């Protein structure tokens, strides 16, 4: 459904925009309907930039992004199907708007002809779908709601549309453990209803919990991707191994990943293409920086 093909994003940097910097460099992957794909990488690796390009909030420098074959086109028709939820729920809400107002804006923009009563019913049932009590959250200002409640309200707002794809960028990093699991379980339910979800995170344990497939990003390029069980269970790229070793585990000491000297995929990756280690499990050349391409 969502397809990124050799996507590149170049920012101009420096005092007069004299230098260029590739925040995203030749990224290709897809997200199917009814699937959660997690996009993992350290801070600055380009995750949010990818999310913003999909949502039409940043221009695409090269390559293409399509949803059901149609290129990204910011506008009502596109946002009916594609929505994003972001890290800091408080910044998405105007603090002087009550929760109801946020839903009313959706109605005005997308369903102006619908009767008020019918709309109210729909809002309430959607709020119940994200397991909130409409009477408790409607009529409240954002600062009167917890982070988890706000995050769920934002998801509810997206669900009122005819949604196909949800981009969730670090939506759980501000939440504590118990609330976080509720929000993750909600995303899992949405996927079961046929939604495609791109789950952006730097927390590997959350990606592992939720996603069918995992894409590991490093400095704007994909170093490894495949079924989550494969990428996490049998990581091939030294960077993936290094990330996994840094994850704090409850019942095991911190490991130090052994640095890999040689790359098995070096010859195969001479063109910069990824090597398919097994069906669907792709890995980039680990010596890419040195690779003459």
């Amino acid at each position, binding site marked *: 459904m969502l397809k990124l093909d050799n996507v590149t994003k170049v920012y101009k940097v420096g005092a007069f925009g004299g230098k260029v910097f590739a925040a995203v460099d030749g990224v290709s992957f897809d997200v199917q309907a009814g699937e959660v794909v997690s996009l993992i990488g*350290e801070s600055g690796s380009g995750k949010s930039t990818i999310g913003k390009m999909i949502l039409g909030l940043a221009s695409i420098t090269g390559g293409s992004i399509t949803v059901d074959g149609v290129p990204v086109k910011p506008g009502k028709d596109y946002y009916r199907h594609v929505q994003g939820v972001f890290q800091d729920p408080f910044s998405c809400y105007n603090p002087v708007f009550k929760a109801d107002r946020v839903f009313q804006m959706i109605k005005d923009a997308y369903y102006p002809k619908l009767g008020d009563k019918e709309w109210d019913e729909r809002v309430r049932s959607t709020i119940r779908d994200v397991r909130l009590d409409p009477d408790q959250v409607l009529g409240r200002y954002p600062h009167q709601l917890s982070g988890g409640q706000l995050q769920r309200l934002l998801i509810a707002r997206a669900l009122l549309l005819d949604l196909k794809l949800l981009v969730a960028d670090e939506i759980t990093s501000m939440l504590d453990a118990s609330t976080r699991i509720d929000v993750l379980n909600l995303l899992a339910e949405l996927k079961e209803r046929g939604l495609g979800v791109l789950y952006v995170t730097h927390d590997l344990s959350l990606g592992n919990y939720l996603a069918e497939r995992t894409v590991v990003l490093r400095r704007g390029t994909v170093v490894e991707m495949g079924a989550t069980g494969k990428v996490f269970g049998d990581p091939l790229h030294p960077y993936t191994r290094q*990330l996994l070793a840094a994850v704090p585990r409850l019942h095991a000491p911190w490991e130090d990943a052994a640095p890999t000297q040689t790359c098995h995929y070096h010859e195969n990756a001479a063109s910069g293409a990824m090597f398919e280690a097994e069906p669907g499990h792709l890995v980039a050349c680990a010596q890419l920086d040195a690779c003459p391409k």
Partner: protein
Amino acid sequence: MSLQVNDLRVYYRTLKGDVKALDGVSFSMEDGEILGLAGESGCGKTTLGKSLIRMDGRMRHMGGTVELDGRELPIGDDRRMNDFRFREVSLIPQYSMSAMNPTRKIGRMVRELLRSRGATLDLDELESRLSLVELPHAVLDRYPIELSGGMKQRMVMVISTLLDPSLLIADEVTSALDVSTQKAVARALIGFRDAGFVKSMIFVTHDLALTSHIADTIMVMYAGKLAEKAPATAIVKKPRHPYTKLLLDSLPEVGVRYTEKRLAGIAGSPPSLLDPPAGCRFRSRCPIAGEECVQEPPMAEIEPNHFVACWKA
């Protein structure tokens, strides 16, 4: 003994009444101990940290005492606390990364800060500390915005411990960082303790897995009170408070496949601290609550150094 906190009560004055953010908290810390402080958002972690160093205008010290290295901290007296701040107790606040003055180069900022405390800069010492946290000497010539989140966080650590305080409070210093940076910062914190730059440390976070790697002891708070305090391995392997157990159960782990199985959050939400219920504050969410729980459970030492406030632990 490094720190001794006795029945500490700190409330926030609001229009609707007092928010009882710390409501009778007692614990102690040994020399060299790293204490992990965990609990869900709003339970009072930051309030505890701030109480030990600087109360904001709305905070009121309602009762209880704090002793550091045998001396009582005048926590309710902002002026008298000046003798202790930075020298004896230092805080790395939540969101401190964004709080660095953006118009000053880091080196100048450090010098000014030391001067304001009547101390001079020992450049050799500063450099050796920078290298301990793997920062190049050149950071001193840079502006804060020129550093990544992880670098800023380590810089703040170095700055706040320059005068070798007895107690360092680190509030959510790793929460915004990715795993590799988090690990580096966490190890640097342990290094500071080992090198004696700080005697003991309170490490505040809601990431229990991370705390278990750093802390000697973990203390779990719930709604303004202590729920459980025990050596880190005991909290992780043999938690006794129902709240600690549920918190641990809600953590997803890498290396586990979750195809069918779903984890559960803790149903319900914590009580309002404006008017907290009598008895055990976890009662409305506790799966094993019984009649006795309408009485407040005392903190009991059920095994050496393992303290739990629960009738059924």
